[in-house]
Every structure is written in C-alpha cells, then in structure tokens.
C-alpha cells in the first residue's frame, strides 16, 4: 500500500485529476462511480505523503484548484460532465423513447500523446509497480463516470453497449490538439513528411487517430522524451463538446400486403431519373407510416418475400414483407397505431396491409427462406391460338409434378445474370372458360422463384417444358394473380379480440377482410366475363 499512496500523491502532484490518479492505480475492481469510498476505506486521506516543502496535498486534494488534468484534459472532471449535460446538442437524445442508453466517447488524439508521456514517466518513477500493471482505460472509466448523471438527466437507464440499442456518442475537441500533435513531426519526420505531401492518400488528414498510434508505437522512449515533456505539462484548456450523436438500432415492422391493381409496381420504378408510375406498394405503405407515426420515408427500407410484376395482382392472404426503420426515435408502437396505418393504406384501395406488427431482427431470415423455399400458388388466364380441347386440358391435368428448365427470361435479362434454373411445378389444374373457347383458367402451385409468365408462353423456347409445349400450340398469358404465398410469417394478428381496438376499428377491419376475400373470389370470374364481352365486341 505504501507504494500506492506514494504513487497516488505523486500523480496528483504532477497535475492528474483524481480519477486519472485512481486509474493509474491499476485496480480493476474499483467502482469508478464512487472512488471517494475506495479512497476513504483505504485511508488514502491519512496516508497522503508529505512533499518536501509543503503539505498542500495532505488530506485536502479535493480542494485543489482544478486545472485541466494532464492526461484526460478534463474528460474525467466535473467540468466536462457539466458541459455535456448543458449542451443543447444533447436535447435530441431526449426525444428518443428508448428507456435505456449506452454512451461512447471520441477523444482528441492529443490524449494519446499524453498517455504515452505518462507511461514513460511512471515506468521510470515506479518501475516495479508498472512492470506488470497497466492502467484502467480512459474510455471505460469515462463511461462509469458519466452514466449515472447522464441517465438522471435523460431519464434513461444505462445499459451495456453489447445489448443496448440506443447509443450516444460524445465527441470532444481540444483547442491545442494540432499544436501538441505537431511534436510528432519531430519524432517521426519521415512518416509525417510523407503524410504532408501525399495528401490525397491520407484524406488531407495529417494527424489521424490511427496514424498517431502508429507514430507513437514506432517512437522509442528516448526519442519521445527529447521531443515531448515527461510528465506532460499542465494544459491551459479543458476539452470542449464538439458534437453529440444519437443513434438507435433499426427496428422492424412486418405484415402481409395484398395488391388489387394491375398498374402498380412494388417499388418505385425509375427509368433515367423519371418515375414511370405514380406510386408503388412501397410508397403507399411508407406514406401511411409517415402519416401515422411521423417517420420519414428516408428512414424506411422495404423488403418482402419475393415480388410480383406491376400487372400481377396479389390476393388471398397476401405477401409477407417487412420494413426496417432506421434510427427510430419512436420505438414503442401500439396495436392501435398499427391498425391506423393499415386503415390509412387501404384508403387508396390499391393495396391492403394486414397483420402489421413489430418483429425482432432474428425473425427476418424467414422472409428470405420464404423467398427461396416456400411454394406459391398462382391463377393464370391463358390464351391459346386455337380453341382449347378437353384433351389439351387433360394433358395439363395429368402432368402432376413437372421439372422445368428456365433460362433467365428476356424480360429481366437486362438486370439479371444469364443462367439456367431448375424449377418445379408441383401441381397444375386447368379448366375451360365458359363461352371462351380459347381461354384456359390455370391454377398452379410452384416452387418459389419460378417465372410463371414464361412457363406459360415459353419465352421463345427458353423455358422448357412450357404450357404451349405441353398442349402443342402457341399459348400466351393474359392475366396473372398470386393467390397464395405459402409462408407462415409473420404471426397473424387477432383483430377482434384486442381490448385496445374501438368498435369502429373492428368494424372497419372486418369489412376490409370481407372485401379482400370477395375480390379474390370474384376476380377471375370477372376477368372472364369482361374478356368474353370484349371478344364479342371485337368480333
């Protein structure tokens, strides 16, 4: 202990702050949020060693006029904590609804220089003590130092960075940073000459943090000592708050969407910088989220289990999708708010959104799985060059499982690599359409990733076998609906039973559900009817 008392007093004597002095005691178990207790219990007060001439450090180290610490430049002193708390840049952290926070610090590189100087000093003064001990890192102590105060101010609980989703980064600047770092030029003239001349390579930054670390590790102690004071001099300035950045990890919403329009793409379709369609599934959903939750579309990312063409409808239960919300300020979204988003989406009646909910990041892999593994059901309306015979329909119906080889469709060849893919059609059911001898009503269950349009018309023989080949005539596809995406995700929301829903909400939801099933059920019939009419008019 004797050595430690001596060390502690010496550190204070040369101008270390109290926390830095304790850091250099190299004791991992010390609770830095309450060093007083440690110091008191271990009788640091009583054992303060008198210096030769004065006794000022005896007992009263608390009362020493505080200079900025020679190592941390004030980072671990009340001064900087007050500055952080009073900074208006911290205001935005309060807006986040997260109940927990973690924090980190970006320090000026001059601190590295000073730490090195301290290391050399202490190794020469206390060689036995520093042979095996290393000090507690500055950033770790800073976290402990600020977390309680910061937490009280923000009314959030501090949490470890590996589990916490909301982080606050405080960047501190030091007015004399460049001036002090300039000593490095004398220590590593060659390195810094190169850095000064090859500006582009080093991004115009002479003293990067990484560069300073390299420079210091390449500089032997004697070189360092001739070019920089050991121990470091007492600085004239405290650190200043430069910036405070807040960031919340993404949260995710998931749901299913149905699409009733044949003139609507899934994502905005932009050719040569011009949007070709007024809106898209993504934009409708984003707009609704913006209207209800006030989240800007710039912070939203849309992903789904596959996609349908703009002229293909997606009916039945719809397609699973999720939305990543980047840096969310609001993370707690109520059942009612989700229902309001759904209601908002349905206003345009182009698409429907159901089962909207919060999901965990770990669940998202299921969507990609669904994209590759799950089967999809389709209903295709096909047009044959010649009137369709029962025999031809039978040919389709007895197929059972069909393995097909599909070259990348010409339709998407400009944006996909050319490849031959092996896909499976699990089941097909073909029916005649009453009053329409050239039409086939085809129901398919296929492996995910099958290009159904090409399976019908054959894409100039690039998909084989195809429907045309199977029935021995030229066949084209007129209309296509996705009727099911057989992926059980996300979980279904129970609309009726939740207490939070008002009766009018309930009513509306059930109506919409009925509405979507109705459309699904009648749609094909409608196509045929209208087709029939159209054909007759044409004739």
């Amino acid at each position, binding site marked *: 202990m004797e050595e430690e008392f001596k060390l502690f007093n010496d550190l204070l004597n040369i101008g270390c702050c109290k926390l830095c002095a304790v850091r250099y005691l190299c004791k991992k178990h010390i609770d830095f949020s309450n060093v007083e207790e440690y110091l008191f219990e271990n009788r640091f007060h009583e054992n303060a060693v008198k210096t030769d001439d004065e006794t000022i450090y005896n007992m009263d180290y608390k009362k020493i006029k505080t200079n900025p610490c020679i190592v941390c430049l004030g980072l671990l002193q009340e001064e900087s904590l007050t500055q952080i708390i009073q900074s208006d840049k911290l205001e935005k952290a309060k807006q986040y609804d997260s109940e927990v926070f973690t924090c980190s610090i970006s320090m000026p590189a001059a601190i590295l220089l000073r730490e090195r100087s301290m290391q050399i000093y202490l190794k020469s003064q206390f060689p036995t003590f520093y042979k095996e001990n290393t000090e507690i890192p500055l950033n770790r102590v800073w976290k402990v130092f600020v977390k309680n105060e910061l937490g009280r101010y923000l009314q959030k609980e501090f949490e470890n960075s590996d589990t916490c989703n909301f982080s606050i980064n405080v960047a501190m600047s030091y007015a004399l940073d460049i001036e002090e770092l300039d000593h490095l030029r004398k220590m590593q003239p060659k390195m810094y000459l190169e850095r000064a001349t090859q500006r582009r390579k080093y991004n115009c930054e002479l003293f990067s943090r990484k560069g300073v670390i390299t420079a210091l590790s390449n500089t032997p102690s004697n070189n360092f000592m001739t070019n920089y004071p050991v121990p470091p001099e007492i600085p004239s300035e405290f650190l200043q708050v430069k910036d405070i950045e807040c960031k919340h990890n993404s949260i995710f919403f998931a749901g299913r969407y149905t699409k009733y329009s044949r003139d609507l793409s899934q994502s905005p379709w932009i050719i040569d910088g011009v949007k070709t369609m007024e809106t898209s599934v993504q934009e409708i959903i984003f707009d609704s989220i913006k209207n209800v939750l006030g989240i800007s579309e710039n912070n939203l990312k849309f992903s789904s289990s596959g996609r349908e063409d703009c002229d293909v409808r997606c009916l039945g239960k719809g397609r699973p999708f999720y939305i990543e919300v980047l840096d969310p300020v609001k993370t707690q979204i109520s059942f009612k708010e989700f229902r309001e988003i759904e209601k908002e989406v349905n*206003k345009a009646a182009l698409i429907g959104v159901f089962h909207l909910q919060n999901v965990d990041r770990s669940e998202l892999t299921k969507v990609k799985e669904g994209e590759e593994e799950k089967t999809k059901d389709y209903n295709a309306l096909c047009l044959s060059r010649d009137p369709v015979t029962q025999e031809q329909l039978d040919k389709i119906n007895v197929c059972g499982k069909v393995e097909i080889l599909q070259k990348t469709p010409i339709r998407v060849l400009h944006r996909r690599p*050319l490849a031959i893919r092996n896909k499976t059609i699990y089941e097909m059911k073909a029916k005649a359409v009453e009053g329409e001898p050239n039409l086939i009503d085809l129901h398919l269950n296929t492996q995910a990733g099958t290009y159904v349009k090409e399976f019908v018309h054959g894409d100039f023989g690039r998909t084989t076998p195809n429907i045309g080949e199977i029935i021995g005539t030229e066949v084209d596809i007129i209309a296509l609906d996705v009727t099911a995406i057989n992926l059980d995700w996300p979980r279904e929301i129970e609309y009726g039973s939740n207490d939070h829903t008002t009766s009018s909400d309930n*009513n509306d939801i059930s109506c919409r559900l009925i509405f979507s099933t109705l459309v699904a059920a009648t749609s094909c019939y409608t196509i045929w009817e209208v087709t029939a009419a*159209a054909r007759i008019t044409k004739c």
Partner: protein
Amino acid sequence: MLLCTTKQLDLNKPLPQRNILESIADKINDKKIFLSVHERYYEHKYCVALPGISQDIHQKVGFHTNRVCLLSLAENHPIRKEDKNISRINFKVSETLDRLQNKVSGKSKRGAQKLHKSSIICYIECSDDTNYPVYSCVEGKLVEINDKLITNPNLLKAKPDSDGYIALLLPVLSMYEDLKSSMLTKEQYFCLGSI
C-alpha cells in the same frame, strides 16, 4: 354485411370495388393483350443495309422494352421468301472465333463477345449450296445464341419471330436511340420490297 362494406368504403374517397373491376376491364379491353409475346413486348425494326457490305441484308431486330435485342430473319430474306431448306448453321465465323463459345457472367454480361453492326453472327448454309451470313446489326454484346438452331436449323423459317430467333444482343445504351432510328419500320421495309 355487404351494405356495411359499401357504407364503410364510401367514407374513403374512391369506391374500391368498382375501381378494381373497372381496372380489369380496361386491361382486358386493351387490344394489346391479344397480341403474341413478340408483338406485345418488342418493337420490330428492319435492317437492310450495313456500312461496308454490298449485298442487301434482310434482317429484323426486335427491341424489347428493356432494350435487349432479338435478332431474326426478315420476311423478305431469300431463305424465308423462297422457302429454302437449311442444312446447317455455322457459328464458327472465323478460324479463331466461335460464337458458341460465348460466355457471359453477372448482371452486366461480362466476358461477352463484342459486336459491331457488321460483325457476323453465323453463316446459314442451305441445301442448294447457297450461304448467307447473318450480321449483328447492333453494336454491343452478344448475350446468347439460340442453341436450338444447332439441332433444328429450320426453326429459323418455321418460327422466325419466336423460337427461331438467332441471338440475343445487348446494345451499347448510349447509341440505342440512334440505332433504332437508323433502321426501317415494317411499313418502310415492305414498301421497299414492292419497288
């Protein structure tokens, strides 16, 4: 229940049910849907002359809306017009260059054979000993040769606009519009034939 639906939906601006039904009707009424695939998605243009080539060329280029080009024989090509019997299609256009060795990878079709307008894609050899070169007509990349022609060369005549296509090409995009306008329309092509 249905009444309730109507009432609820009335509150939201458009009438969804009507809307949806009408949109299908629009689509079905559109005569485009009764066209075949190559008519629906491709704009066909005719190439009759190329710089540095003295004889007439009777070729057709189908421009897909996504700018992929489909190369085929035009209606007035001697093979089609005189219904010649094709004995073989030779894709080895020089000692060192075999179009069947073309390999592309990735979205941008890396490694594709580069083509000029007058690059030869293949030679069509007929049973009457005539031999017709097929030109690229398009400056760009060779994406795919129709490999069905190797075993069944007469597809060229039988289904010239669909399964009998010769090759898929990806034109240099900066020259795309110029390329398209440099070729003849169907009307122009047939007018030319009648003179």
